[in-house]
């Protein structure tokens, strides 16, 4: 039932957009939709009326340099997902009872999954519970930010590489912390090169090992960022096909709406899967750092 409603909603949106869109501005429209910006826009799909909110400019003087701390569209939606996570999870956790019900049971399922399937199995049961709050927070934040991009007017904050770099750097810091906690600060940095390597190889091994520390957050960053951007671009290009192929005839529209609906449900799955993979790999890195060989 919801699928039919959604497909109808998409049709209405396309008909509304069709009054203004032309074939040659399809790529611009799509990349403008994915890109970051200084405004938050709302458009009525039926009448075409728009409401645009301009975000404030915050410039901070530090020493001689001016640092631009102005919020952008993605920042606003990242804050929104943060507020949703904090308020939603704390409200759900207030109503806890022995028999979980309502939204609390959903939160409990996810937390239990993160704790038992991801943290315990990757980090080991005796050390895992210390890192579960971090992992669960990461999971809920990424999941909410991914899903916010799939509701009407929503913007995907995780489709901005700066956001994913920030999340991956948080993971890197926790990984380094786990390594230093397991081996001691000096022991961790002195054992960065594995034992048994001849001394003349050290100038080569130290950059390689430092590179190994940097590639883990790099992989996390690009994986989440690319998945979110690519999904949205595919979704919009399938809808843009209607305008690109408008010379062929009107038969394109139902096909492309059907495909876009399919990709939309795939995107719902990808939103969950990417949050899961990010948290799983974070747990794996923490586990590898806290169990040195």
């Amino acid at each position, binding site marked *: 039932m919801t699928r039919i409603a959604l497909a109808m909603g998409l049709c209405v949106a396309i008909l509304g957009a069709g009054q203004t869109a032309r074939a040659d501005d399809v790529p611009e429209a799509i990349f403008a939709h994915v890109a970051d910006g200084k405004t938050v826009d709302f458009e009525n799909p039926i009448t075409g009326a728009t409401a645009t909110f301009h975000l404030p400019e915050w410039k901070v003087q530090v020493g001689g340099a001016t640092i631009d701390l102005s919020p952008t569209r993605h920042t606003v939606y990242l804050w929104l997902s943060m507020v949703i996570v904090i308020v939603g999870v704390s409200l759900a956790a207030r109503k806890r009872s022995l028999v979980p019900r309502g939204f609390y049971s959903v939160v409990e399922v996810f937390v239990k999954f993160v704790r038992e*399937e991801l943290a315990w*199995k990757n980090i080991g049961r005796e050390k895992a519970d210390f890192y579960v709050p971090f992992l669960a927070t990461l999971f809920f934040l990424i999941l909410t930010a991914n899903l916010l991009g799939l509701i009407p007017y929503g913007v995907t904050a995780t489709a901005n590489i700066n956001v994913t770099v920030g999340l991956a750097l948080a993971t890197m810091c926790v990984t380094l912390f786990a390594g230093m906690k397991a081996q001691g600060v000096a022991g961790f940095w002195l054992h960065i090169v594995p034992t048994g390597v001849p001394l003349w190889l050290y100038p080569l091994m130290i950059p*390689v090992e430092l*590179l*190994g520390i940097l*590639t883990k957050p790099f992989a996390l960053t690009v994986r989440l960022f690319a998945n979110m951007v690519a999904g949205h671009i595919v979704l919009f290009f399938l809808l843009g096909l209607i305008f690109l192929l408008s010379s062929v005839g009107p038969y394109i529209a139902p096909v492309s709406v059907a495909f876009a609906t399919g990709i939309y449900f795939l995107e719902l799955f990808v939103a969950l899967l990417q949050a899961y993979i990010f948290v799983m790999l974070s747990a794996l890195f923490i586990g590898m750092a806290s169990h040195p060989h």
Partner: protein
Amino acid sequence: MSGFARAMREAEPYIQASWSLAAAVALGVLAGYFADKKLGTTPWLLLAGSVLGMALGVYAFIRAILMAERKRLSR
């Protein structure tokens, strides 16, 4: 889902090896590019950075694969 988690855990060293190759090249090229822009020595630092990044990346890749294989076979 736990079967998938186990598969990810097994495959992770190999995925990481391929990422380290890509990251080394990307980091070398970017570092060279921005150093060139800063110092005005276009294009020499870019070339040096990309060659260094490629060499380091291939070395890190081969080493990560060998270590992962050794770990897999010793289990």
